[in-house]
């Protein structure tokens, strides 16, 4: 992971230059036993980044499906990096699964058990990019942070009684 433009972390490029510098929120290796914990970590950071409601849930599930795909079909482990780039939240899921002939993106019939993970990731994210490398696949999803407040979806029902925007002790859940 050396691409992604100028990643001047630790580079004293001068005051104000960090407005567009990527900010890494999560960088973590994963395997089957850490999938659930990693999802919780990602969910917490997605909330910190300012997403909530369906937009946040969808992005977290999309990331989770890419992680699951890497564990099940991409060699059993991988690396995840979640970062803010400009006004988007971007998550790269990098597996080391060798050949990657089958990346099923079409929807399975309703009576076929498998093959829905990438479909979900695709339909839950605003952008999904799959890049084949010689030694695996890099899957990236992104969501625009500035669209998140657009009133395109109905207000979030809050069964517990209105804690939206009013939880000073918010521990990642919004």
């Amino acid at each position, binding site marked *: 992971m050396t691409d992604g433009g100028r990643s001047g972390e630790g580079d004293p490029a001068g005051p104000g230059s960090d407005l567009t510098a990527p900010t890494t929120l999560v960088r973590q290796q994963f395997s*089957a*036993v*850490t*999938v*659930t*914990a990693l*999802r919780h970590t990602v969910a917490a950071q997605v909330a910190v980044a300012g997403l909530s409601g*369906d937009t946040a*849930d969808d992005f977290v*599930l999309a990331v*989770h*499906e890419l992680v*699951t795909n890497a*564990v*099940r079909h991409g060699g059993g482990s991988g690396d995840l990096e979640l970062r803010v780039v400009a006004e988007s939240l971007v998550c790269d899921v990098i597996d080391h699964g060798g050949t990657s002939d089958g990346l099923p993106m079409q*929807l*399975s019939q*309703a*009576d*076929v*058990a*498998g093959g*829905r*993970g990438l*479909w*979900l990731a695709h*339909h*839950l994210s605003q952008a999904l990019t799959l890049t084949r490398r010689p030694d695996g696949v890099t899957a990236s999803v992104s969501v625009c942070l500035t669209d998140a407040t657009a009133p395109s979806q109905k207000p979030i*029902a809050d069964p517990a009684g209105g804690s939206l925007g009013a939880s000073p002790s918010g521990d990642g859940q919004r």
Partner: protein
Amino acid sequence: MTEPTWRHDVRTADGHTTIELTGEIDMSGSTRLQDLLDQAVNAASAVTVDVAAVGFIDSTVISAFVRANNTAATRGCRFVVVNPSAQVRRVLHITGVLSTLAEDTA
């Protein structure tokens, strides 16, 4: 190594098994879920899976539901998923299995 993030409660009466699931279910629990569902659809004449208290499912859970539904169909067992939360319902809908697995309730 990983603690279960979900639990289940099974009740059977007159050949009708009701399975109540609670928690978050993902790939780390999908094998246990599959075993649970398979056992039910192979023994009962009707299986209802109540997911009212399920806050998260992923594609591996949908696979388990679909497999169980297929097994049930070959046995003449009725299999249905009821009370999905908004999130669960959305996932079932996007993946095209809502009408196959869940009762059509508005």
